[in-house]
């Protein structure tokens, strides 16, 4: 059912990772993603796995949820595996007409798959443990130096938080409208593709109208509360680093140094 879909997919739990400042989590995610691309041997792989495993364990989010994000890239994964196996030159394992599978191809396929999986799981940890609003707050703060370049950081983050805020509302609305039309015996499940798209019109028209109506109302409500953009605006809950955030940064930097050492040594 539609209400089961979670975008922004925050998973409420009380863990150290949940309580970290979003900026720390952002930086950690970036560092982790970079490190995933630096993996060339087993040692690197083990280090990245250990880091990822520790984060998953600390976050108290069921692993099942972490792996949910992989469903989306499942087809991409299959393609990468097949293409890498078939079109990498090297020692041949077997040949089937024009398809050649090579050792190098199998290894490359394995590496690429692992990278993609780690990439997705790594960033999923962040979205699962950070509320969308917290995340945009963190982004705004992290990007604020760009303000000097006249980059509309505040406006961008406001747009993002509004967009994120509207996703569940519009999903709920879609659910409601679909049910109402189903109550009038509308059928969304059978028929060919063209038929199905056509059947969606009774849902899409009211949905668009309501989205525009809501946007209008929101704009009015914001004006009524004297919203005029970012200049001079203070926050109710400003982001302040405390001890665990500093420890978090220290861990991230230690991880980074570990990688630099690893690259220099090997």
């Amino acid at each position, binding site marked *: 059912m539609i*209400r*089961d879909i979670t975008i922004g997919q925050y*998973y*409420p*739990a009380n863990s150290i990772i949940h309580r970290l400042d979003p900026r720390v989590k952002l930086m950690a995610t970036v560092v982790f993603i970079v490190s995933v691309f630096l993996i060339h041997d087993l040692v690197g792989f083990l280090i990245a796995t250990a880091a990822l495993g520790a984060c998953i364990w600390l976050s108290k989010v069921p692993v099942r949820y972490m792996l949910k994000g992989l469903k989306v890239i499942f087809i991409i994964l299959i393609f990468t595996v097949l293409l890498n196996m078939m079109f990498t030159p090297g020692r041949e394992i077997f040949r089937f007409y024009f398809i050649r599978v090579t050792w190098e191809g199998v290894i490359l396929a394995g590496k690429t798959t692992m990278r993609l999986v780690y990439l997705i799981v790594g960033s999923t940890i962040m979205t699962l443990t950070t509320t969308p609003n917290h995340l945009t707050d963190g982004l705004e703060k992290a990007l604020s130096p760009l303000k000097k370049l006249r980059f509309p950081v505040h406006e961008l983050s406001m747009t993002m938080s509004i967009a994120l805020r509207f996703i569940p509302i519009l999903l709920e609305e879609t659910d*409601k*409208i679909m*049910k*109402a*039309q*189903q*109550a*009038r*015996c*509308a*059928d969304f499940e059978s028929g060919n593709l063209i038929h199905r798209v056509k059947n969606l*019109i*009774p849902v899409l*028209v*009211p949905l668009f*109208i*309501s989205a525009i109506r809501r946007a209008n109302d929101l704009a009015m409500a914001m004006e009524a509360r004297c919203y005029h953009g970012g200049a001079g605006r203070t926050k109710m809950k400003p982001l302040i680093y405390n001890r665990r955030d500093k420890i978090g940064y220290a861990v991230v930097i230690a991880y980074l140094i570990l990688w630099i050492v690893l690259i220099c040594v090997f």
Partner: protein
Amino acid sequence: MSIRIEHLNYIYSMDSAFRKQALRDICLDIDDGEFIGLIGHTGSGKSTLIQHLNGLIRATDGKIYYNGEDIYQEGYSMTKLRSHVGLVFQYPEYQLFETTVLKDVCFGPGNLGLDAETCMERAKKALSIVGIKEKDHNKSPFELSGGQRRRAAIAGVLAMEPDVLILDEPTAGLDPRGRNDILDQIADLHSRMGITVILVSHSMEDVANYVDRIIAMNRGSVYMDGTPAEVFERYAELEKIGLAAPQVTYFMHDLQRSFPGMRADVTTVREAKDAILGWFEGGEKR
């Protein structure tokens, strides 16, 4: 026997952190031709319950029989069920999508596989029941006023000629006149065509004025089930679950304190009038 609900349970988001039991062990019998008011605080499960009755939500556990047939048995046609049990959602005017009012009302009967002519006929009949004039039939739904749009949307369900009509707060956000118009039309449908009506409402006055039986829900279970007089007599318990009795019931209870012998099991203004006049007549004899 029209609708029978046996030990119905429903749990939202079964296997996630957001799991919530919305309905608990509901057992109800709804007979043909009843006019039922369904009341309960926000989030008590009223909307979830009524969506089960036409198969929009599938129960986690329990059974529903429509005219003796189990609606969850294999091969039971939901389209058939929905043509018999019409459901009008809250703020139905936001579901209008066609270019003209008439076409929109034709949508339901069209989905039942009826030919265009029959659809037209039924749509026109439904629109006349809800009081939308012929000259408005070919207007865009967005040219109508809020109250008219609401009525057009109700006509969209009526055009399927259901035997059971369920309305989820059909009068929310309407002015007093629009409210009375819609409720009168529904009551008229009930008495003239004998259809079963289930009315979800937050207005105790409306419920007292129109229905024969009240089902009060609290936290996903049926809390009370009886005639308006029986249910509202227990107003103290109703208040505990965020509901109330009609104002006139409170008034009569106060009056009873000063005028012993006054009947207080009263839920409408008309009944109050009879009770007061009756007391005076009784007084002459006293």
